[in-house]
């Protein structure tokens, strides 16, 4: 012993000591890997496929074709010329003419300057490579045989493009004013809607938090109502209110509701609850001492407002602004219904894909739509990360004092906002019950005979409920377990950080983009997951992924409230973590778990954008039915279906409330002493 201690420095370095991973750690890491894999497969890979699709172009490869021309008697001398040579000689097509879409066709008579369909000259052509393609009329030739045609038939020859890679799609996009104008349109419509919504929501939230007016509970309820309907519904209400046969048409003084005006009003309606929620949270926590200080310094209420209230709520305001901006710029349903000739990015994607089957251009617009959405998302995250505890332990909650005049003003203001929200919904319900607006105003249930309309009928409605339930169950399980693993497992910091990053990503991805990416990824026959394409499963997966972020954040917040001691204690008692998870963590966090499931359910009922590319006739959805019925001109049944979604969601909320209360009574008794 003494010898060894003396020669300590001479000893070989000991092994690098590393904590041995327990079985529990392995299970936790395994679980995290599974959920990370889920996010990669349902988010990262589809987006990557879409990005690569936007660079996939179609080119006419003139070198792939060979031609022969006969003399007037139809005799060929054996001279063979390639398409490239012909084009170089005649200059028939510019380089830009040769890049096209998957649907492109190129006539060949321009290569022969003396061409006439009456001429007795015969032509021969062939593909030089197997799989090259040209058409005679509509008949496809893709082998390398020579084909002889007379002049009159030869003019029906159309070359078909082959796939290539390049940025031609983007060049094409930015050289088409009808397309890139949408960027400007989308941006200013979103900015304007954001400005209006945030101002309205701020004063509404202010009234509810900082005044003593009456009916606060009722107003809170009304403010949240728009969240229960698809974003298309305000569009339909606006048609009935301000359309050419609208009830309040005169209020617009001849302006058309179809266009930016309609989009802004509708956007204010459907984004209002989101802005209100965020701002009301920001206003709810405020330090009463600051107001006392302000009043003892004799600051005017106006000055106090700008120096205390606004700075205190600034993070909430900024956050609300970005959320609203993101919602408006990525929304597709509303501009589709009420946008008229006013093109926006999200509708462009739909038009490119559904109307023109131009998937590549759809991918290009998607890539462009992601940019402002990601930008808004990043700024929002930066702002939120700065918002730390403006409230300290010594803060005193602000108590508003009754003031008859201000309270009355706020009551009038809130009544107007409430009337706007209730009015929109009431108009839809009224329209749904009228027989034939505006010619026959008698009431009937005709518009509820969905099976007689396009869109999927009552089946679509029940499909939606099924989707809502499946999404709520599967989504909550995945999200909560994932959040638990990230929050409570030990070590493995890099993996956990990466997981957090991926979990935040869905918030920045517009639904249209996600849906389109799913087509590219899952509708590829070589994808082993191809089987879920066109089933309810892909709708569930897509919806869960689309609404992953908010659910994840809710779960993380709930889990953060639980001390990590629980894990240490269970480890020292030699209890498996999963047992702890099911016996302690889930019951304690049950209120949040229920919140996540109702959030997922409601969004699954109302979402349009993410699923519009993915539903199949067997899995038609109520929200899609609203879109399709409106599209076909059956506006009243569309309103009827929209209101069915509203009532279903309202019922779900009430059930959620009762369950929460019951569950809270049973599992949360420990919270009260």
């Amino acid at each position, binding site marked *: 012993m003494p010898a060894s201690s003396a020669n300590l420095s001479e000893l070989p370095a000991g092994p690098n000591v590393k904590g041995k991973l327990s079985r529990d750690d392995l299970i936790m890491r395994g679980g995290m890997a599974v959920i990370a894999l889920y996010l990669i497969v349902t988010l990262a890979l589809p987006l990557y496929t879409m990005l690569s699709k936007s660079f996939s172009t179609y080119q006419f490869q003139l070198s792939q074709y060979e031609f022969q021309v006969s003399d007037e008697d139809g005799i060929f001398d054996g001279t063979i010329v390639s398409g490239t040579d012909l084009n170089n000689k005649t200059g028939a097509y510019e380089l830009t003419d040769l890049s096209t879409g998957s649907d492109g066709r190129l006539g060949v008579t321009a290569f022969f300057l003396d061409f006439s369909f009456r001429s007795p000259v015969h032509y021969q052509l062939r593909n030089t490579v197997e799989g090259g393609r040209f058409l005679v009329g509509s008949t496809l030739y893709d082998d390398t045989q020579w084909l002889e045609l007379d002049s009159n038939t030869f003019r029906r020859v159309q070359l078909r493009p082959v796939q290539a890679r390049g940025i031609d799609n983007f060049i094409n996009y930015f050289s088409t004013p009808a397309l890139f104008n949408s960027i400007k349109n989308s941006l200013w419509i979103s900015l304007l809607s954001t400005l209006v919504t945030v101002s309205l929501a701020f004063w509404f939230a202010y009234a509810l938090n900082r005044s003593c007016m009456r009916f606060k509970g009722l107003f809170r309820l009304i403010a949240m109502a728009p969240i229960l309907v698809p974003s298309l519904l305000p569009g339909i209400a606006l048609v009935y209110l301000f359309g050419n046969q609208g009830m309040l048409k005169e209020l617009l003084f001849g302006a058309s509701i179809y266009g930016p005006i309609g989009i802004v009003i509708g956007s204010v309606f459907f984004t209002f609850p989101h802005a209100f929620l965020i701002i009301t949270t920001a206003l709810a926590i405020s330090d009463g001492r600051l107001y006392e200080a302000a009043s003892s310094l004799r600051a005017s209420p106006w000055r106090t407002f700008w120096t205390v209230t606004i700075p205190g709520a600034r993070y909430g305001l900024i956050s609300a602004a970005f959320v609203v901006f993101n919602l408006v710029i990525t929304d597709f349903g509303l501009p589709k219904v009420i946008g008229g000739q006013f093109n926006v990015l999200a509708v462009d994607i739909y038009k490119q894909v559904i109307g023109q089957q131009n998937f590549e251009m759809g991918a290009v617009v998607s890539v462009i739509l992601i940019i402002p959405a990601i930008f808004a998302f990043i700024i929002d995250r930066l702002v939120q990360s700065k918002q730390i505890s403006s409230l300290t332990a010594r803060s005193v909650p602000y108590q508003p004092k009754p003031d008859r005049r201000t309270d009355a003003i706020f009551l009038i203001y809130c009544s107007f906002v409430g009337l706007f929200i209730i009015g929109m919904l009431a108009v839809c319900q009224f329209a749904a019950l009228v027989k*034939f607006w505006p010619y026959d105003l008698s009431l009937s249930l005709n518009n509820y005979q969905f099976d007689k309309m396009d869109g999927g009928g009552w089946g679509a409605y029940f499909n939606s409920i099924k989707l809502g339930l499946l999404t709520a169950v599967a989504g909550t399980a995945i999200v909560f377990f994932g959040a638990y693993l990230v929050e409570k497992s030990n070590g493995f910091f890099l993996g956990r950080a990466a997981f957090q990053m991926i979990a935040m990503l869905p918030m920045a991805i517009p639904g249209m983009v996600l849906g389109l990416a799913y087509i590219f990824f899952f509708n590829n026959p070589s994808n082993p997951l191809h089987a879920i394409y066109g089933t309810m499963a892909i709708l569930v997966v897509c919806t869960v992924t689309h609404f992953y972020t908010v659910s994840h954040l809710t779960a993380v917040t709930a889990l953060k409230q639980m001390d990590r001691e629980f894990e240490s204690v269970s480890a020292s008692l030699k209890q498996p973590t999963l047992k702890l998870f099911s016996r302690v963590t889930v019951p304690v966090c049950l209120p949040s778990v229920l919140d996540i499931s109702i959030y997922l359910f409601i969004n699954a009922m109302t979402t349009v954008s993410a699923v519009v590319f993915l539903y199949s006739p067997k899995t038609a959805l109520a929200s899609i039915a609203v879109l399709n019925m409106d599209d076909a001109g059956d506006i009243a049944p569309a309103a009827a279906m929209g209101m069915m979604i509203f009532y279903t969601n309202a019922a779900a909320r009430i059930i959620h409330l009762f369950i929460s209360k019951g569950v809270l009574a049973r599992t949360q008794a420990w919270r009260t002493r």
Partner: protein
Amino acid sequence: MKLSTKNITSVVVGAMMATSAAAETELTVYTAVEAEDLARYAETFNESNPDIKINWVRDSTGIITAKLLAERDNPQADVIWGLAATSLLLLKSEGMLDAYAPAGVDKLDAKFVDGDNPPAWVGMDAWVASVCYNTVEAGKAGLTPPTSWKDLTDPQYAGHLIMPNPNSSGTGFLDVSSWLQIFGEDGGWEYMDALHENIARYTHSGSKPCKLAAAGEIPIGISFAFRGAKSKAAGAPIEIIVPSEGVGWDMEATAIVAGTANLDAAKKLVDFTVTKQANEMYNTGYAVVAYPGVAKPVEFFPEGLLDAMIDNDFEFAANNRAAILKEWQSRYDGKSDPK
């Protein structure tokens, strides 16, 4: 207890699977036929072919076409029954259709059958462009009824006109392609330039203009005759006007998808689609059907529609589709203020 329940379940499930597997061939049929007609079509077919079950996949023309094109390398459909001929020409040019001459195809009007032999597709019925004119709203606005396409460019109709966007609607495209054929290439674009001045907005779907006219949202909607007749039957105050220069049309057609695993059943279905019985069935909604002598007048259908149908060049429409749509988009789409 547990075990027996399990056993019963498995027996029941097994029995159900066995019966459904043994009894019939199932055909996946893609269609754009109006939803309300599908059950009737399948029933009539099953009267003579009870052993073939049809699984409908229904959507609008654009979406079904997109779906078929997307599935080019791995087709899911066995048969297409009721899709626009222009769309079938696109599919044909991708080599996706199995040419087949159904028994009795020679009895059909030749313009309803693909020119190749054997034909890649056979037509069923035609849908024809028309103008829906709301007499009540037009009266309020003091308009006189138009009689021709040219009339619609009259300044009195400014802002009172709606048509479908050809980039998303098959009906819109057949209007545009018919104008290019009626007025010639240059004349057609000149005509649309003038028409654009009067258009309030373009809709995404082809039936919406007529439904909007029926609801009084706009006095005049360029749509198709079938839709107009239905709205009129539902009590809307509209007249269906057939412009004097002639009207564009497209047909619904049937084809076998290349690579189907159920070729025999598919052939039986296509054989049925050209029979007199099938054509009588199409006639309930469509005034013009492929089988000569079958068509009876459909209620509220405008007179003289058949004679007004132009000699439509489908190949021109299909092969120039991409170029026409691009030109249309650059001229009229996304411009809130007309040029």
